[in-house]
């Protein structure tokens, strides 16, 4: 049977992708950030996941205002890096796992989550920056990826509680898949940041630290945080943190934190990163 071995959370700041793609990782501004992922790259090389369910949000790349799915699961064979206005990132095409993706779609829909099934979708920095941070710059990504796009641009986004419960449904889906597969679930975005208006640049280390702590110890409590508290405490784009709860819901209640990294700033954003392993 397939099983979920671990979860990863990480910010997905576009400037991180640009720094990698332009060979700036050794510059003093970026060096501490990339150093924070060295452990993670070694760890994942040992873990060798077969599939990553990668929870992220699209940033007006694949989805404009014409169509705004709350939860969209990528069931295609592959997903091309999106052209976000300055050409696609020079990263490998993402290979999907259609059979498992369809299985998760069916299982979660029957569990009353109204997933949108996507058979063609370009993936933007929200998905490719986490892959780059965890795998570096390989010629091909070393595992299959199932993109799970969550709307956090148009209000209202899903509640934290809905995300937490979707994670639990994903766990049930994966564990009922007959093939032996090592699956990871990643939750991306965050941490505190605000990109708009006179309040842009907001960073809240205290909130972020508590969120990192409670993701392991008190996810049910985190799932109760209302949207307005994310915006107030973590900035308007800090709302992306609801996606981390999908990852957490997919792991065992007694999953343990094996790695943590926190760094300010990457461009406008506080970068947070966790690795949680199932017992």
């Amino acid at each position: 049977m397939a099983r979920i071995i671990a979860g990863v959370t990480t910010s997905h700041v576009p400037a991180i992708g640009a720094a990698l793609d332009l060979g700036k990782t050794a510059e003093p501004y970026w060096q501490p950030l990339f150093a924070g992922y060295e452990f993670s790259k070694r760890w994942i090389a040992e873990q060798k996941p077969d599939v990553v369910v990668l929870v992220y949000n699209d940033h007006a790349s694949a989805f404009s205002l014409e169509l705004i799915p709350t939860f969209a699961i990528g069931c295609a064979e592959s997903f091309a890096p999106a052209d976000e206005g300055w050409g696609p990132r020079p990263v490998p095409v993402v290979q999907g796992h259609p059979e498992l993706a369809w299985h998760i779609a069916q299982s979660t829909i029957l569990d009353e989550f109204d997933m949108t099934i996507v058979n063609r979708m370009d993936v933007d920095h929200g998905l490719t920056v986490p892959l780059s941070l965890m795998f570096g710059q390989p010629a091909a990504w070393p595992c299959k990826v199932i993109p799970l796009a969550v709307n956090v641009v148009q209000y209202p986004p899903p509640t934290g509680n809905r995300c937490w419960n979707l994670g639990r449904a994903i766990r049930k889906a994966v564990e009922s898949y007959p093939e032996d597969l090592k699956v990871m679930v990643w939750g991306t975005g965050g941490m505190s940041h605000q990109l708009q208006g006179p309040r842009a640049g907001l960073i809240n280390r205290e909130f972020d630290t508590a969120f990192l702590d409670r993701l392991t110890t008190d996810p049910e409590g985190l799932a109760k945080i209302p949207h307005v508290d994310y915006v107030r405490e973590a900035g308007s784009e800090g709302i992306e943190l609801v996606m981390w709860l999908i990852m957490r819901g997919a792991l065992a209640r007694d999953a343990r934190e094996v790695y943590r990294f926190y760094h300010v700033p990457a461009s406008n954003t506080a970068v947070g990163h966790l690795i949680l392993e199932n017992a």
Partner: protein
Amino acid sequence: MTDYNDAFKDIPGTVVFDATQSRLGYHLNMFCMSLMKADNRAAFKADERAYLERFPMRAEQREAVLARDYNRMISLGGNIYFLAKIGATDGFSFQNLASKMTGVSEEAYRGMMLAGGRPAQGNRSRSDPTL
């Protein structure tokens, strides 16, 4: 629902992209979306005013685009992820846009971020004094 939407209005310097903003800004944001294509970026750069006429926007939205007044665009329904495509077309980083929206130089904004960012303390509520 009124309570849900109103709760955000106490947060200073922030516009939540809710149903009202989305309806107001639909054509402005779809104009921004068109800038994902190189041909459209070239057409916009060649004659901004004429290109904007292709989209059934309000006159004040067109003027805000021409003036690159991002806070005004946001108040008129623009969403930052869409508006960022104007910045990209102009060749500016997100940090440059943020400095414009916060009314400081890019260097000052960058310095604020390196020093740990804008603190939440004092910026949580319209009744807070700092912003």
